[in-house]
């Protein structure tokens, strides 16, 4: 055990002595969160909105006026019928269309409720969600103003939000879970594969193997510091996303951290596997970056919803661990669901961890033969 601890300490020294490692470990995640955080939370200004007013009464005019004068939106066009929606979106300047139903004002007065639809251009998911949320907020504000104080009749306007082009856009902050998913697999897999291939390249691996340290101890000793630092990283990212753009963890924090640990473990075993198939650091970096980063960004559902992909990509992405973790982390962070809803994904990740471990052990043994 003492031998092992000395070895772990040495690995920490490697990490803290190399500023590049530190930048990759902590600088990049922080930068990513900040970049994405600000990109997402920036207020919208003068977003193009078109109005389709089928009722055209005093109340709809007032509400339109309130929306347009809020400063967030600017009216691009007044539409006459539904067919024009597609056209106006294709022109590109309009990001959302607000539709008042027939007899909007009358219904609101006689039935105390009316509905309006907000159709947003889902091809820009962040703008779309922001616009719909802002509009909905303005509408709520408007109804409270209209309702006379003291009266029992609370007026209700139901905003019906629809996404054009991207109907499955679900979560508000899809980026934080995505960034955590991407960062963790990248850092864990990249760092472990590099640190192990480095020992191979410098010839120190031979010396370690000849020493009384067991191969398991060597691998664990190399991986343990990264496990700890990655966990610190998770806490850092969560804290940052909470501070910078108020993204709380809706579900159980403990469950989230436990799932993160599993995912880190999976990524580390993947890193070990990469190190067993690559003979030098360049190769390890290449495999980690090209083999993990691009597929994670493109196919895991981080940015592009899997539901909208052609079937072949859907199948392809099912071998990517991030796909499952994204579901887990989104569920816990944004929807606040419990373990019952994510046990399948958790199981997949656990199985992947075991498979990667098994493969690495086999590869390692062959090398020792």
């Amino acid at each position, binding site marked *: 055990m003492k031998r092992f601890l000395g070895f772990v300490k040495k690995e920490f020294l490697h990490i803290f002595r190399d500023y590049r490692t530190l930048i990759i470990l902590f600088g990049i995640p922080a930068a990513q969160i900040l970049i994405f955080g600000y990109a997402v939370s920036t207020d919208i200004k003068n977003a193009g909105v078109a109005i389709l007013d089928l009722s055209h009464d005093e109340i709809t005019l007032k509400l339109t006026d309130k929306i347009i004068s809020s400063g967030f939106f600017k009216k691009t066009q007044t539409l006459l019928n539904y067919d024009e929606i597609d056209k106006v979106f294709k022109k590109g300047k309009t990001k959302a269309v607000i539709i008042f139903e027939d007899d909007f004002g009358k219904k609101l007065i006689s039935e105390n409720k009316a509905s309006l639809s907000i159709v947003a251009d889902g091809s820009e998911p962040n703008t779309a969600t922001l616009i719909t949320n802002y509009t909905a907020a303005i509408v709520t504000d408007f109804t409270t103003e209209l309702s006379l104080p003291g009266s029992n009749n609370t007026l209700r306007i139901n905003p019906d939000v629809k996404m054009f082009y991207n109907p499955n856009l679900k979560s508000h902050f899809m980026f934080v879970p995505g960034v955590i998913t991407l960062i963790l697999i990248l850092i864990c897999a990249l760092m472990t594969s590099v640190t192990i291939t480095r020992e191979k390249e410098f010839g*120190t691996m031979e010396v370690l193997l000849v020493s009384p340290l067991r191969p398991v101890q060597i691998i664990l000793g190399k991986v343990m510091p990264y496990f700890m630092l990655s966990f610190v990283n998770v806490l850092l990212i969560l804290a940052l996303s909470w501070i910078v753009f108020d993204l709380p963890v809706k579900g159980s924090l403990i469950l989230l951290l436990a799932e993160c640990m599993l995912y880190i473990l999976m990524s580390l075993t993947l890193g070990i596997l990469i190190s067993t198939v690559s003979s030098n650091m360049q190769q390890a970096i290449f495999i980690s970056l090209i083999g993990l980063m691009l597929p994670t960004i493109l196919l895991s559902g981080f940015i592009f919803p899997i539901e909208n992909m052609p079937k072949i990509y859907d199948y392809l992405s099912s071998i990517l661990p991030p796909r499952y973790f994204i579901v887990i982390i989104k569920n816990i962070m944004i929807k606040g669901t419990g373990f019952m809803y994510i046990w399948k994904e958790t199981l997949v990740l656990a199985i992947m961890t075991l498979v990667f471990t098994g493969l690495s052990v086999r590869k390692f043994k062959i090398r020792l033969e």
Partner: protein
Amino acid sequence: MNEKVITVHNLVKKFGSFVANDNLSFEVSSGEIFGFLGANGAGKTTAIRILSGLSKPTSGEVTVAGFNAYRQTEEIKKNIGYMCQKFSLYEDLTVKENIILYGGIYGMKKTLIRQRLDELLSKLHFHEFENRMISDLPLGLRQKLAFAVAVLHEPKIVFLDEPTGGVDPITRRQFWESIYETSSGGITVFVTTHYMDEAEYCDRISIMSEGKIVALDTPDNLKKQFTSATIEEVFIKIARPNHLEKKKVDY
């Protein structure tokens, strides 16, 4: 000199149908400097890996430091030191940190490590370097230090796999002085090398070719046997034979 620290009897190592070590037999005595020569691909590395407990023989009897190479590889590892051509030290750690690390890996007590560190530093006139990074040291110093680290835990045998590759002649000379010193202290030195002048420094040498040991004796006897002036000539006759000469050697 009579105690045998390595005994190898009919060692065979196969990878599939390829025979890397074909029926090797030799013994190495305690305190001996044993040279292990052969062209690339002759099977030296395979043999060293088996002797150092990294891989298991296919058949034959192998005992290292009194331990069985099939079952007691962990025990073997505790009793040997190892240094390879690429320096086994971590460049981003200091001299002291490297020594503490390796001492710790071999389970040495802290006080003992400290004591050995001091001895070493004063012997090599190294004190000013204690807290320097290895990457700041000149090549010759690094190499001496790597060797010192390989014998830090006072192993019975130290394996040196081409330890002087890419080093200038003066440094090599100095390096061999420390090898002599170590061997006079009772540690057996098992060394592979490409430099034939170095082979002359060994007590005995074995020359491998195509998986077999084709010659094994003291350098002087070998030179007599092959009527050559230097070991280099012996080596060329044995390891790179044309077909006529090969028949003569292949007994």
